[in-house]
């Protein structure tokens, strides 16, 4: 399989569009909680928006009250669906605005890492206007994806609790006790030395992710492992958004490995 930068960009656009559609469906299901009778009341949040840079205060202030926010979600769902079907990144700047608006509405992020990844992919797509800029955008997404794994991996490697499996065990226990993860996970993942082996496997995968750049076949193997890793995180920790946000970035990583492989 050989991709041009146009192909890779179209797959990144489709991937992030799918992630945005699913995120928007979730937010729509929760819409009552953003109203004045809900938790994230605009009348409470409004004061904080005065601290935004002046350039952003007006546009965000316009779309973040309850009714305009619902309209923003509806428009975003329609635009993301169009991008999913067309594979064209032309609407990425508008979708980037909606993504930032949602993050600001939730005081920085609704779902942490998946919001970060969605923003940076949309940011890159917004600048991909020429073949050279497209390559630069794909490289930016690929580098950030690599950093996301490898920095997280080295941060875990420094921790004794991660190296001996205690940290993973406590996260799984927390997911079961507080976040509704199935109880059988405790037996499957945390008994004996399993948690340590799993933790070391995660650390090895994350730390060594830069090797994905060395060859397209190695890259394909890392990306397959990555999908399995995010699927497991969805099952255990309920991080379904991470699966789609990171999968959207994978075509960029594969394109870069292919580009470097062909220039060897």
């Amino acid at each position, binding site marked *: 399989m050989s991709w041009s930068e146009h192909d890779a960009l179209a797959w990144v656009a489709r991937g992030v569009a799918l992630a945005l559609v699913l995120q928007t469906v979730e937010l729509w299901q929760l819409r009552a909680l953003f109203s004045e009778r809900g*938790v994230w009341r605009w009348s409470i949040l409004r004061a904080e928006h005065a601290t935004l840079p002046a350039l952003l205060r007006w546009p965000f202030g316009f779309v973040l009250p309850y009714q305009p926010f619902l309209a923003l979600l509806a428009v975003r769902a329609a635009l993301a669906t169009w991008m999913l079907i067309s594979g064209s990144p032309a609407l990425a700047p508008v979708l980037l605005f909606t993504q930032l608006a949602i993050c600001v509405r939730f005081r920085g992020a609704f779902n942490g890492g998946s919001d970060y990844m969605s923003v940076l992919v949309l940011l890159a797509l917004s600048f991909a206007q020429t073949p050279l800029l497209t390559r630069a955008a794909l490289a930016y997404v690929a580098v950030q994806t690599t950093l996301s794994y490898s920095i997280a991996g080295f*941060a875990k490697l420094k921790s004794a609790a991660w190296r001996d499996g205690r940290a993973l065990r406590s996260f799984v226990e927390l997911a079961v006790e507080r976040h509704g993860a199935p109880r059988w996970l405790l037996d499957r993942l945390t008994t004996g030395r399993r948690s340590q082996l799993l933790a070391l496997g995660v650390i090895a995968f994350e730390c060594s992710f830069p090797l994905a750049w060395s060859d397209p076949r190695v890259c394909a193997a890392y990306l397959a492992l990555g999908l399995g890793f995010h699927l497991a995180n969805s099952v255990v920790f309920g991080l379904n958004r991470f699966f789609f946000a990171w999968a959207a970035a994978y075509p960029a990583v594969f394109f870069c490995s292919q580009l470097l492989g062909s220039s060897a």
Partner: protein
Amino acid sequence: MGIWIAAGLLIACLVLARLPRRDVQGRGLALLRTLFPSWRFFEEIEAGPSLQVATAAVGEPFGAWRDAQPASPRTAAALLVNARGNLELAYQSLVDQLASELDDAAQDPTASITYALVQRLIEVECLSVAECAPGQRYRFRLHAGVANEDGDFVSAEHVVGAT
């Protein structure tokens, strides 16, 4: 060439991971923190506090503490759309943020937006219909576990509907 780029990235990641973590300063920039990812997932080992609530009818003493956020069971469909699960994670972030603000003695955290949102979380999600009647009171605590109970933050009494 790929292997050299891979080696360079590996070294860069190693260096970046060794740098001390720096939080985005200033509330305005914090709202835009998605533009500055740190990529240090699951670095903090200790679980954040759990939110517990106790309620009282008019003229009655407070009842026992109970978990404010009972977990919803996970379904297979949650792999695709997990609104409730992601909402519970967002609620936990809110509680963690309040705990962090309580540690910061520079300002009165009970006057903060985070505090007001936690009050709304309790009134909207955690109280039964009977507990939302006029004059009902509640208080909440950030519970760090039985072993650390002395360090729990316990809120003042609040009357339902006052926020």
